[in-house]
């Protein structure tokens, strides 16, 4: 029996025994950031391939979710700050060593870009509603009228329309940076062994792309587009599974703290919830469903898409909680 007993702690229940500095706000933001990155990535990619009319939902419809997701995510981040009135200090400094600093700047670039992108397609959205959801269209008709009321504003929209190629290139790169950043944000902390792995950046990027593709797939009414995104998701899920195995292999081959971290998921407190919700429900089940779809069975689209999104949310919640519980013992 080897034990270390801490008799007088630091009288701070916020730190002992488990660190509880970050709560629901952070996984919410990490998920929404990843989702936005995924949607923008595919929108820009398909546009640059010249497939904007073929994959209409991905390029023209789904990006409307992005500014809303980013706004909600940023609001969650704001709620997390404990010294809220000083939040603007983020934008008076650039610190390249701090992922949170350059992440804040990436958001500063990508949010207006995504808004410009959807503004240039707003006419198409209203047409889409007019065609598919006349009731929704009727309710929001005044928005359309207001948005296209002034000539200068209309000219601005059409000017953005001519700049789409540049926007798409910047968006493509920034979407990848945003997706990786949601993981790097955590992996920069060497005090939390679970997060301190370079796999996390790739894992969060792939998971973000996968949830983005699932969202587009869910929204799409077009069979060809759905098929393509279903294939993409199939590949992304396989990569994600590989990355998870890779992450645990790395931990198990590491130092004592890393081995203990891996054991949290291999027999410890987080075993059941992680392997059931993230790996089985969020990855293996949609993998099976999409494989069946690939073989010609008819699977309702909301099943794999919903499961993938659920898996993405759970991955972030569990990694955040478990990360704060993993620590150096001395």
């Amino acid at each position, binding site marked *: 029996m*080897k034990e270390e007993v801490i008799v*007088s702690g630091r009288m701070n229940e916020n730190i002992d025994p488990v660190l509880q500095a970050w709560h629901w706000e952070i996984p919410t933001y990490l998920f929404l950031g990843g989702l936005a990155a995924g949607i923008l990535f595919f929108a820009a990619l398909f546009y640059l391939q010249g497939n904007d009319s073929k994959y209409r939902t991905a390029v023209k419809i789904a990006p409307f979710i992005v500014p809303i997701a980013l706004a909600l995510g940023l609001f969650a981040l704001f709620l*997390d700050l*404990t010294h809220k009135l000083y939040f603007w200090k983020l934008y008076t*400094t650039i*610190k390249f*060593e701090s992922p949170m*600093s350059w992440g804040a700047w990436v958001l500063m670039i990508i949010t207006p870009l995504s808004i410009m992108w959807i503004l240039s397609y707003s006419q198409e959205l209203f047409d889409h509603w007019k065609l598919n959801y006349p009731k929704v269209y009727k309710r929001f008709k005044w928005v359309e009228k207001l948005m296209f009321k002034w000539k200068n504003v209309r000219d601005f929209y059409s000017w953005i329309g001519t700049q789409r190629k540049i926007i798409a290139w910047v968006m493509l790169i920034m979407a990848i940076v945003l997706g990786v950043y949601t993981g790097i944000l955590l992996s920069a902390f060497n005090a939390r062994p679970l997060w301190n792995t370079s796999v996390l950046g790739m894992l969060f990027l792939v998971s973000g792309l996968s949830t983005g593709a699932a969202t587009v797939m869910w929204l799409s009414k077009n069979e060809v587009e759905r098929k393509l995104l279903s294939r993409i998701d199939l590949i992304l899920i396989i990569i994600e599974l590989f990355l998870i195995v890779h992450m645990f292999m790395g931990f198990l081959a590491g130092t004592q703290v890393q081995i203990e971290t891996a054991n949290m998921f291999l027999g410890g407190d987080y075993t059941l919830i992680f392997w059931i919700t993230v790996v089985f429900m969020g990855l293996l089940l949609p993998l099976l469903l999409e494989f069946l779809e690939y073989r010609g069975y008819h699977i309702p689209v909301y099943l794999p898409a919903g499961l993938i999104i659920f898996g993405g949310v759970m991955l972030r919640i569990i990694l955040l909680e478990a990360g704060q519980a993993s620590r150096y013992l001395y």
Partner: protein
Amino acid sequence: MRYAMAIDTKKCVGCSDCVVACQTENNVPIGFCRDWVVESTDGSYPQLVLENRSERCNHCENSPCVRCCPTGASHYEEGGIVTVTKQDCIGCSACIQSCPYDARYTHPEGYVDKCTFCIQLVTKGQKPACVDVCPTKCMYFGDLDNPNSEVSLILARRKHKTLIPEAGTNPQVYFLI
């Protein structure tokens, strides 16, 4: 100038006077503390090893908290003291997450607070409150660049360790063993 602290684990009796002195000197809000005493028992009965450690921010030379801070609120002062400028702190808790020693806490006013080696005293040539008050005189403070300082002399003479050296932080609080 390189401030460091050495704490004699053989002389420490774990009375927590250092904790109270710090709370008084630095006006630490009730329920929080910048330093704390760890009494660790290691081994299996009856071969037990007891160690008392008065712990605090290690004022690391390679501080993860300074690196992670997005606004530069966490920074190095002269002599390598790591402090937080409260007007620059947004309360994102990144530094709390990055500290392997869990030495930081969120002040009820919102900013993040921690041990400052009593910078208000040491810049005037005085000792930090915890060192000053210790009844067994088990703590030493001074400049490592000066080979004749109290802390340099004791570290040259005694075996010592730092906490979690494998974290790569290069701590400046030494424990004499």
